[in-house]
């Protein structure tokens, strides 16, 4: 008997018990869909971070308080590296006066606040930078302007709002420029707004209000600066500037600072995200394994139900291999069909979620999910099929 025959027999068996087959597949569908979806989110976020960070230019240095090996061996990432005193605004100013070969030093802090205008409100991310923040923000102004140096120095209550904030507080095309909104009860004048950026790692990138970092301090009551960005004039000087930064900050922070280039930052982030993605995919993989056990269970039931059929087939000449392949192919068909549906569901889910989280369905994730589910079918199908193939034809024929 050839493969096509086994295949036809398997198809008939799968379709003979439609509900049971569908339920059995469900385990695999959920597992594969979960793998596809989680990997899509992981990949999507990674891609977005990469493009955001790269959009800032390759001549940026990130300074974090605390020590972190560039290989990512530390316990955490980014703002809040292990140990280390946080920076303050004066550290940024000091650095600015002591460094050469740079365009700007930008301290960055963030918080969250409730913005209100008339009876409308919006809970938004507050991002504080100096007036040179434009150098490290990749959004485009729709109208108005960024705050200037004197506003920054005076801690003026002015803000540039993201597109989501604009549409929440000023629907119907109302012009926000010059309007006074309240943020956590304090009055701020809107001096500009950004066009839509889209996507977002931790929520909506457009749901942001950019204010002078000095003004943010009075909003959050927190004067800590978790990160400083340094824009180097020429990319070729980046290592020089890095050494300079360390030297300048050494008297106050000794070696408790971390200076990373864009590449290094991305490297650590990607490593972390990669680990997270693998972990999540692993958990999803476990559900795929559970789906496989479901297949094994149903195949064992199927074999015992069809003992007589196996006896008949053997009596008329089926060999061990014929019975074995019939049942393995049946199990594989369940898992592969489940895999295909799972990929469709996972990709559909990724598409549906793409408004909330960046998602990217990569071909390799699809390929791995497909072959893994097929493998699950073979692995969990072999034992029941082997049992079937070893049945004694006389016993099988007598089976009621």
């Amino acid at each position, binding site marked *: 008997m050839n493969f096509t025959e086994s295949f036809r027999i398997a198809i008939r068996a799968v379709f003979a018990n439609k509900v049971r087959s569908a339920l059995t597949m469900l385990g695999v569908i959920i597992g594969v869909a979960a793998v596809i979806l989680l990997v899509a989110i992981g990949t999507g976020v990674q891609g977005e971070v990469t493009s955001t960070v790269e959009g800032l230019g390759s001549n940026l240095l990130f300074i974090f308080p605390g020590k972190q090996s560039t290989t990512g061996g530390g316990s955490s990432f980014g703002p809040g590296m292990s140990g280390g005193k946080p920076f303050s605004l004066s550290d940024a100013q000091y650095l600015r006066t002591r460094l050469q070969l740079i365009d700007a030093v930008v301290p960055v802090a963030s918080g969250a606040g409730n913005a209100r205008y008339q009876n409308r409100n919006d809970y938004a991310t507050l991002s504080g930078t100096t007036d040179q923040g434009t150098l490290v923000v990749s959004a485009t102004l729709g109208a108005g302007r960024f705050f200037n140096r004197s506003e920054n120095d005076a801690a003026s209550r002015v803000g540039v709002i993201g597109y989501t904030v604009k549409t929440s507080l000023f629907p119907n095309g109302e012009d926000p420029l010059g309007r006074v909104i309240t943020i956590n009860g304090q009055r701020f004048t809107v001096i500009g707004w950004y066009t839509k950026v889209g996507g977002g790692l931790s929520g909506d990138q457009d749901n942001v209000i950019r204010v002078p970092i000095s003004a943010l301090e009075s909003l959050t009551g927190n004067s800590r600066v978790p990160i400083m960005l340094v824009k180097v004039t020429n990319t070729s000087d980046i290592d020089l500037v890095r050494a300079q930064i360390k030297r300048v900050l050494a008297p106050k922070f000794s070696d408790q600072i971390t200076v990373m280039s864009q590449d290094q930052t991305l490297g650590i982030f990607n490593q972390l995200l990669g680990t997270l993605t693998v972990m999540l995919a692993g958990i999803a993989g476990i559900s795929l394994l559970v789906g496989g056990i479901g297949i094994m269970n149903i195949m064992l039931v199927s074999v015992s139900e069809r003992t007589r059929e196996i006896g*008949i087939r053997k*009596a*008329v000449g089926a*060999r061990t291999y014929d019975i074995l392949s019939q049942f393995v192919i049946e199990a594989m068909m369940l898992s592969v069909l489940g895999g295909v549906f799972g990929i469709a569901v996972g990709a559909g889910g990724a598409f549906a979620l793409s408004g909330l989280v960046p998602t990217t369905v990569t071909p390799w994730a699809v390929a791995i999910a497909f072959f893994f589910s097929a493998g699950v079918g073979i692995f969990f199908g072999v034992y029941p099929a082997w049992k079937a193939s070893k049945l004694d034809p*006389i016993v099988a024929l007598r089976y009621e």
Partner: protein
Amino acid sequence: MTKKPTTDALPKGAADTGRSLASQRENAFLGEDRRRAEWGRRLDGRRTVLEVRGVTKVYQLEGIEVHALCGVSVAIREGEMVAIMGPSGSGKSTLMHIIGLLDRPTSGVVSIEGEVVGDLTPNQLAGLRNQHIGFVFQSFNLLARTGAQANVELPLVYGGVSGSERARRAREALERVELGDRLNHTSGQLSGGQQQRVAIARALVTNPSIVLADEPTGNLDSRSGVEVMGILQDLNAQGITVVIVTHDANVARHARRIVELRDGEIVRDEPVPDRLDAHDEIIQLGMNTVGGVERARAAGDPA
């Protein structure tokens, strides 16, 4: 088979119309010696398709040895129609499983078409079953939810016959059991007698050396039973070797030779002196089905 029509009990008119009945009656007048001599002549030069020699089968049942067969020797020659008869528990099914290469004897030799099957692997035995043996079971054993033609094709599938050839041969076999118009009917859509005829077609389709039927009428009403026996007799008349396992003496009388088992031993092995012809029984039962009457007419009914 509850009805027991015998040659003597036949109504006069019916008896006169059956050609084979007449020859049977003639047969009955022959002496035992002459009958055996004629039997020998009939089989002269025919090759032995299947032979068991000194076969024993011992089952272990909770530590107790059950001797199901105690040294059975039988040779079946091409074109024979043999009934293996005996009361329940006498070892008929055990013998049939061994003849059918489904089981191995504890000792003794089994050979089919001259090949001794002693040390063959299960897969090799499966190949021989596929090639040489056609099974007909008491409970039909058709695949559920599968059409008649697909059922009949099954042995060809495992025999590696290609799709179109398979379909052609399956249809041909179904026509031989007069089910050419029921190709796609599943078990649920066929009567018991029809199901057994599908099973016979399945047994035939590979052109086996032997068709083995284990209580083929056991699950049928008497009328369908006679029809099935008629088909087996027709097939035998066309040269097919048939072995029927039965506990019923009247079923056995449709064969040409009876091998009687008792407690695992052969106590009788001789030609049937008063063979029943299923077609005569069909007429006698006053049936107008399954072409039985037509066949009987064609066979010599002047009316």
